[in-house]
């Protein structure tokens, strides 16, 4: 009698009962569980295919939106689940010694700058900065000089506020949320801060502005991902820092 209890305790039953649950296997019998999680270094995807798909994603998100904010929000939402999954996948691929959950903001941002960026775009992000403004200690910036996602996107003049890297921002937000650092991540074209709206275009960057002028000219598409953590993250950070 006791032998039958555990089988009934679960809600799915063993693999042998797969037929009962209505599950259908692929014809070659290989499910997602039969495929390896590790990829070889050379397994890269075609950039053209990505550009095509991403253009479709943008135009899909653009349907029935009322403004640029909403469009960026939709792109952000498309990226979010990817970030959540990447976090687990990339840590799984780490060698066991360094397989550590990020415990503080710096470790998390380094993980994003190095591991996530290398996985997604084949190189590291260009810079990592903390907001110098003392009023906003919760703001961090990940800077990419020419984001791959924007490479083949031409933004019309009347939508100059738009930065389609909101999709990548969504991925970052997913990684942060998953790791237990709830944050709000937005993408901004740096040219916006000082110059006129025309700076965003591929030929822009002529409106040089003080300190950032040089970078703006060299990298017209430079994008800043502004990571704004929730107050409870900083609170916990202070507590952990005080303990150790």
């Amino acid at each position: 009698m006791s032998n039958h209890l555990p089988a009934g305790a679960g809600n799915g039953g063993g693999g042998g009962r797969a037929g009962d649950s209505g599950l259908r296997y692929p014809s070659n019998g290989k499910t997602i569980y039969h495929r390896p999680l590790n990829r070889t270094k050379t397994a890269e995807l075609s950039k053209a295919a990505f550009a095509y798909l991403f253009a479709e994603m943008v135009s899909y998100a653009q349907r029935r939106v009322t403004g640029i904010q909403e469009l960026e929000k939709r792109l952000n939402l498309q990226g979010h689940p990817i970030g959540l999954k990447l976090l687990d996948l990339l840590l799984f691929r780490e060698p066991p010694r360094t397989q550590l959950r990020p415990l503080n903001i710096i470790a998390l941002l380094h993980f994003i700058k190095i591991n996530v960026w290398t996985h997604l775009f084949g190189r590291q992000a260009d810079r990592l900065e903390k907001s110098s403004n003392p009023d906003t200690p919760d703001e961090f910036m990940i800077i990419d000089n020419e984001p791959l996602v924007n490479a083949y996107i031409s933004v019309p003049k009347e939508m100059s506020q738009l930065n389609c890297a909101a999709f990548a921002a969504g991925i970052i937000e997913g990684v942060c949320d998953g790791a237990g650092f709830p944050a709000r991540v937005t993408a901004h074209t740096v040219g916006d801060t000082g110059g006129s709206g025309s700076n965003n275009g591929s030929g822009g960057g002529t409106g040089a502005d003080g300190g950032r002028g040089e970078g703006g000219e060299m990298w017209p598409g430079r994008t800043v991902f502004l990571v704004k953590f929730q107050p409870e993250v900083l609170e916990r950070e202070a507590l952990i820092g005080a303990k150790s």
Partner: protein
Amino acid sequence: MSYYFAIIGTQDNPLFEYEFGTSKQGGDGMARFTEQARQLNQFIIHSSLDIVEEVQWTNGQMYLKLVDRFFTSYISCFLTASNIKFLLLHQPPSSSSSSSALPHPSSSASASTPSLISSSHHHPPSSTSVIPSLSTLTGGSNSSTSTLTGGTSRTSTSIAANPTSPQTEEAIRNFFAEVYENYVKAIMSPFYRTNMEIRSPVFRARVAAAGRKYL
């Protein structure tokens, strides 16, 4: 040794649960929890979540080892990067033999006594009247004779007897690592969203296989 394994999501919601027994030392892989204990197990696991949340910020490792203990139930934890908790409750056999009914005393006796062959021949007829599934029981004790007469395993160093020994810790680490691999595969499905229940029978079979292999 009986095990209760649960995957807990980020909202403290159960995503997956599975009960099994040891397959080492001729165990038949069946859990020996009493009906009461099985319901209690869920509460024990749930209460240990508090301790997990305390430990998780002091240690970046995924495997948090033994985190909690409730009488004879030991709880080990593995925490994935995205805050999904794998919790394994393990209970050494000594406690369950006192509380559970007939099938256990015979199997624990056969695992500890050296004059094993005679005892295993004696016991099944006596239990025939009570236990309907005789075939599985004799199958289990037969395999235990083969391992024990080989003289490879001793009860004192076995995983079952020492829930806190390094061997047990290592075995559970291996178990968690294998489940983690399959969990990552499960979430790679584009249709899976965080905190969804894992229903795949393939996943369940993989967890069962990991349990048989290491525990």
